[in-house]
């Protein structure tokens, strides 16, 4: 059969191409342009090759921010994922309380990021904040403005408060999809609570858990607003994560070239780690199916 050729069809993808070009491709290319040039304003560019990349990759400042970032993501994942699963397992399955729980759980997710930051910034203040003042009154030396450990604790608790709901809600959805017959069969088979979790609930939650971990990893690795509002990256540089450092470099110091090189490497790192996550977790799946 003769295939009809109609090049006019290409016009149909034009709107999408235009949209993606303006929202992603052109801005990204601008960044690429900055990363290989040196500029002093006035739209004057001087070719600089890969020097900015070379400088950035050997920059102690960037590496310090990078390790802080890795540490932060690792800590919140280790807390939020098990806690989210635990909460999902203990949420009521139906009835009015299920709805109440769902609404309460969804609330933190609906609050704008800078508002979350402001809430915790005030909440933790030693002079007027409920948390900070109470801790001081109890004789605990807490001050996130001076003490790096306290600053970290505040930011981690804030993130757990803000995002554990997401993990919990995703897991809850996964749990709800398990037919009642599985639990009944487990009772008949005299399976312990742990075995029910291990052989029924966990396998059924695996798909949503993969998504939850990926989302939480990417989000936490790119976190900016909340720590910026609470600590501004301080005390010192102790909570200066990659994005905060990047903004300081680009907007604060106006080092556009290095900042652009930094951005591109940052972007590649996130892509790489997400890809590794995804590949590892889906390959477990495939191994299972083959055996």
């Amino acid at each position, binding site marked *: 059969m003769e295939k009809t050729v109609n090049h006019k069809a290409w016009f149909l993808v034009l709107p999408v191409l235009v949209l993606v070009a303006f929202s992603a491709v052109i801005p990204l290319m601008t960044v690429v342009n900055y990363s290989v040039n040196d500029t002093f304003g006035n739209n004057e560019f001087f070719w600089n090759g890969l020097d900015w990349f070379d400088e950035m990759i050997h920059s102690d400042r960037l590496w310090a921010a990078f390790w802080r970032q890795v540490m932060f993501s690792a800590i919140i994942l280790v807390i939020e994922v098990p806690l989210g699963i635990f909460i999902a397992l203990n949420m009521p399955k139906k009835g009015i309380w299920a709805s109440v729980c769902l609404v309460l759980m969804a609330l933190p997710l609906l609050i704008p990021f800078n508002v979350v930051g402001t809430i915790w910034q005030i909440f933790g203040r030693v002079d007027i904040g409920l948390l900070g003042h109470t801790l001081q009154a109890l004789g605990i030396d807490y001050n996130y403005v001076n003490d790096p450990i306290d600053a970290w604790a505040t930011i981690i608790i804030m993130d757990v408060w803000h995002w554990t709901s997401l993990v919990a809600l995703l897991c809850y959805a996964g749990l709800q999809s398990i037919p009642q017959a599985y639990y*009944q069969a487990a*009772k008949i*088979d005299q399976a312990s609570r742990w075995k029910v979790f291990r*052989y029924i609930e966990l*396998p059924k939650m695996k798909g949503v858990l993969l998504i939850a971990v990926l989302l939480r990893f990417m989000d936490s690795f790119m976190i900016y607003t909340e720590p910026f509002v609470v600590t501004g990256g301080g005390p010192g540089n102790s909570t200066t994560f990659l994005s905060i450092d990047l903004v300081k470099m680009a907007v604060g110091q106006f080092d556009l070239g290095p900042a652009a090189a930094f951005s591109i490497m940052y972007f590649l790192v996130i892509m790489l780690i997400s890809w590794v996550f995804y590949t590892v977790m889906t390959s477990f799946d495939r191994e299972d*199916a083959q*055996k």
Partner: protein
Amino acid sequence: MARITLSHLAHSYMANPRGEQDFALKEMDHVWDDGGAYALLGASGCGKTTLLNIISGLLRPSQGRVLFGERDVTDAATAERNIAQVFQFPVVYDTMTVRDNLAFPLRNRGLGAAYVAQRVQTIARMIGMEAELGRKARGLTADAKQKISLGRGMVREDVNAILFDEPLTVIDPHMKWELRTQLKALHRQFGHTMIYVTHDQTEALTFADKVVVMHEGRVVQTGTPEELFERPSHTFVGYFIGSPGMNLLDAKVEGSQAVVEGVPVQLGAQYGRPEGRVQIGVRPEFVRLTRDEGLPVRITRIEDVGRHRIARAEFFGREINAILAEDAHVPADASRLAFDPNHTLVYANDWRVQPHPGTEGRAA
């Protein structure tokens, strides 16, 4: 193993049931004899699964007691009752191998590895999955998964009863036959009490020694397949069992005679004068197509279903069926249906009216 007694049992899914209509299971007394092969037959939503879940302890009845032998187990947990149950849709532990799936109920009870291995081998042979023992259960067909579920139900030797909740719904027809035969063989070999829920009468009649028919939350009749066929005690049993089901006609009954739309029909016994909505029922197997006796009808069509033919007729807007032997001659001008008086039963408000003692078979 034990006899299972249900005493004044009833169940409602509502917290405060007000009338009888709120009960999914109406009050009943029933005894399942030790070692019996029972089929629990009824249309969807008649309470079969509810009853099964009460026996296995997955559901606590709103009233009444459940006894295993002499022991009251109404409040005992499922695990204590030592019951096996197979569900309608396959339940397998996806991440385990077929072997681990079959061994799961045994290992949870802390049985020795050698015994477990030997039991698993026996069951695998029975369900024909010896070759797949090392495979993960995920990715198997629905058929295979259901066979694993069945296997898990049968793997324990000491169970009080094995309950099957429409277990063959997802199985291929040829496999259905084979598995049912194996279940029967298993029953003969080990003598477990088996209760098999189904809405398929063929399945019920071939599997069970005794069939329990449920309708709208009630047990309407318990009996052998022959009893259900010959003497249905409720109109539901009459039309649910048999293909086509029993013919039921509104009638006026007096003594040994019924009058249907002005036409007298002879009955096989004395029935007195039953009250309420009175119907006579006769199975198509006991209806003859004749030229000169019985009800004058309009034959609408004759269907050839293989072993026999079914004559569909109309009588005052009501369908009456007759089953004709394959080689029976149908006279071209036959337009009357005659009922065998000994198999013409009387129902009042859907329940069978017992004939006056000693009159059966005489008036014919």
